């Protein structure tokens, strides 16, 4: 049945997380934007203690066993629940949300593509001890969206892989490698001549000799989140730290493809974060308009609407459209459905919509909107990243286009 009502459990969770966001994130939001590269240590410790290091992501598609074996007849709502959680946290502060000690994208890759032994070795640590992070390193100085152009190499040497190369824009890379006992999943090629098929994902643990964080980037927004450059110089990692099949030939459902498949789970998550920021801005504008005595009449003809009313309604509609597309993509994962198209649809829509919504909000509020005394300008800066990471808007459009046209990446690029 078509239904837009959250379950009672989900509403309870949403309200609880909203309290966390309002009570603990908003009060320190500005501080950690201004004091870039400083960790909100107490807050991170608190989040670690309450979340026990569980992933904030929904965990991706669920197989049949998981869906039927959860001991209840209710269908799972893990992924929809994750988008709701992430929206609330990002409504609090998107930079802080990204700074929560968490298995993150690195953990998602291990969950999706790792063997039972690998899951145990790399993920068990998130259940106890000090706060930890895991990260994913794909981008290099020489490429961004074209992930098949990986130049970092992995060469087998006896019982080890030896990695060489430079990775940039690695979210939480510094925290994963040098500020906690975490790890980074590094994409490297074992055979450049094999192109995409030669690219494998390797788990590089903290403390691995030859691995250095050379820079933590200064950014437009989400300044609390660390964005690291990592240099690998003859970094030796154990042979069984490769995710999936190390062979170049043959069907590789895990390794590279497995890691790519995590995008179907992480793109709705990024869209949800965008929506949280957008909602913060829309809520703020609504309150300010109400204070100024401006009423929104939804059922007036265009000729009688003010430009302001029209702008505001457009913001609301775009935000809601993005949210519904995002819920749908997550709902499909909960139902075990392939959602590659829908994940890219929601990410593309949400990234752009929220970029525009927050920019319009700053415009509407005028001198107040542009002022650092309130958070609106920060939300505009924070929002923009969602139009870029986990696949730029354009890359997601490309994926949507391939799906609707039934084209391969060779036919449409």
């Amino acid at each position, binding site marked *: *049945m*078509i*239904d*837009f*009502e*959250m*379950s009672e459990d*989900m509403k309870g969770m949403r309200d609880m997380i909203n309290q966390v966001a309002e009570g603990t994130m908003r009060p320190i939001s500005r501080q950690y934007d201004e004091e870039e590269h400083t960790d909100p240590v107490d807050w991170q410790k608190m989040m670690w203690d309450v979340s026990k290091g569980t992933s904030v992501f929904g965990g991706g598609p669920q197989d049949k066993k998981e869906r039927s074996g959860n001991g209840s007849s*209710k*269908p799972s*709502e893990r992924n*929809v629940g994750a988008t709701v959680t992430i929206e609330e946290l990002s409504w609090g502060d998107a930079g802080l949300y990204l700074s929560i000690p968490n298995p993150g994208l690195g953990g998602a890759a291990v969950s999706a593509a790792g063997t039972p032994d690998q899951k145990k070795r790399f993920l068990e640590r998130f259940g106890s001890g000090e706060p930890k992070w895991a990260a994913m390193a794909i981008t290099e100085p020489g490429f961004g969206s074209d992930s098949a152009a990986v130049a970092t190499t992995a060469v087998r040497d006896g019982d080890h892989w030896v990695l060489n190369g430079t990775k940039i824009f690695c979210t939480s890379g510094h925290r994963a490698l040098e500020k906690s006992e975490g790890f980074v999943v590094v994409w490297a090629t074992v055979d450049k001549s094999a192109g995409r098929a030669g690219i494998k994902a390797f788990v590089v643990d903290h403390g691995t000799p030859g691995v250095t964080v050379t820079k933590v980037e200064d950014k437009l927004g989400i300044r609390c989140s660390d964005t690291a450059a990592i240099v690998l110089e003859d970094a030796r990692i154990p042979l069984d730290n490769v995710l999936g099949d190390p062979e170049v030939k043959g069907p590789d459902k895990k390794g590279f493809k497995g890691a790519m498949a995590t995008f179907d789970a992480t793109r709705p998550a990024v869209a949800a974060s965008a929506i949280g920021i957008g909602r913060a801005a829309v809520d703020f504008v609504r309150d300010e308009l109400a204070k100024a005595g401006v009423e929104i009449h*939804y*059922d*007036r*003809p*265009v*000729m*009688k609407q003010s430009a302001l009313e029209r702008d505001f*309604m457009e913001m*609301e*509609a*775009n935000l*809601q*459209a*993005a949210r*519904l*597309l995002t*819920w*749908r993509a997550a*709902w*499909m994962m909960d139902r075990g459905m392939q959602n590659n198209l*829908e994940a890219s*649809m929601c990410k*593309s*829509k949400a990234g752009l919509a929220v970029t525009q919504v927050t920019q319009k909000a700053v415009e509407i509020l005028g001198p107040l909107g542009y002022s650092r005394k309130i958070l609106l300008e920060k939300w505009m800066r924070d929002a923009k990243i969602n139009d870029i990471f986990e696949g730029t808007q*354009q890359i997601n*459009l*490309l994926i*949507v*286009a391939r799906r*609707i*046209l039934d*084209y391969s990446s060779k*036919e*449409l690029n």
Partner: protein
Amino acid sequence: MISFEPNEDQRMMRDTVASFAINQVRPIARDADESCQIPDSIVQQAWELGLIQSAIPEEHGGYGGDRSAVTSALVCEELGYGDLSIALHVLAPRLVTYPVLELGSDEQKNEVLPAYCGDSFVAGTAALMEPAMGFDVNQLSVTASRQNGDYVLDGAKCYVPLGPDARHTVVYAAEDGETKAFLVGSDTPGLAVVEREKIMGIKGLATYELKLDNCKIPASARLEGDVKPIFNRSRIALASLAVGVARAAFEYARDYAKDRHAFGVPIAQKQAIAFMLAEMAIEIDATRLLAWEAAWKLDRGEDATRESCLAKNYAADMVLKVTDNAVQVLGGHGYIRDHMVELWLRNGRGFATFEGLALA
């Protein structure tokens, strides 16, 4: 619990209407537009699908089904996908039956509803829009004033579908500044059909200008209660019809782009075209979900004014953009009437203007 899956009945209904739209409606859509006429046979076929009778209780001769706006959103999308003129024509009787079902007294129901449960199509209509810029459903210029216990309607209406053929016309008028609905029989003195309108799109649908000149109706002709939910149903129907029109244009442009070669490859392999198509697909899905959500809220008996207005306005922008892009993808060929896309653009342009032409 959040879900995007239509139930079994809804899927069946949608699939039935979809197959009717593809196989029966679409093949005659161009002809209907060119000849400004819709064949009786298609109207009768649609009637036999039970789109009107299903929501009327058995005691009045109907099938006693529900009036779910969500189901209706699904149906409207498919009909709009077939052809907008034909969709609006075959759904027109709802413009009478739904307000009577929602707002009517037992007497009014008894009097009106059985007429719409027979074996053949019976036209019904509503007069809401007015020939003025800034037309506002909340501030109508057609007035209803009390006179010796009766009502007198005065003013002009436009875009009244099937005007002279309608058994009943629901006239919306301002009584003391408040919008109310009145049931007017076709032979009521003072109700005059001026002429069939010549409009840019939906040319198959016969729409008329109406003049109400000292048109006297008994006090019992007024439908009691709040007309807002009726207007919200109209917004949801129009939003869903717009999704159907946009989907038709999108699919046509998509298939054309895969077929048409330029510079040695199908133009769909060029990002300039592929990205347009991708954006069209995303916006169509986005609008559908907004319409569903508004319909869902209305079905729960809640005030869906905000959601249905947002969905309808969003849909009006979306369908114009999508149909315009479809013409653009076809280039010069899109401008030629051999192809359907120019028709969809003309029809799509109407949604910003249309109010109250269909009910979900």
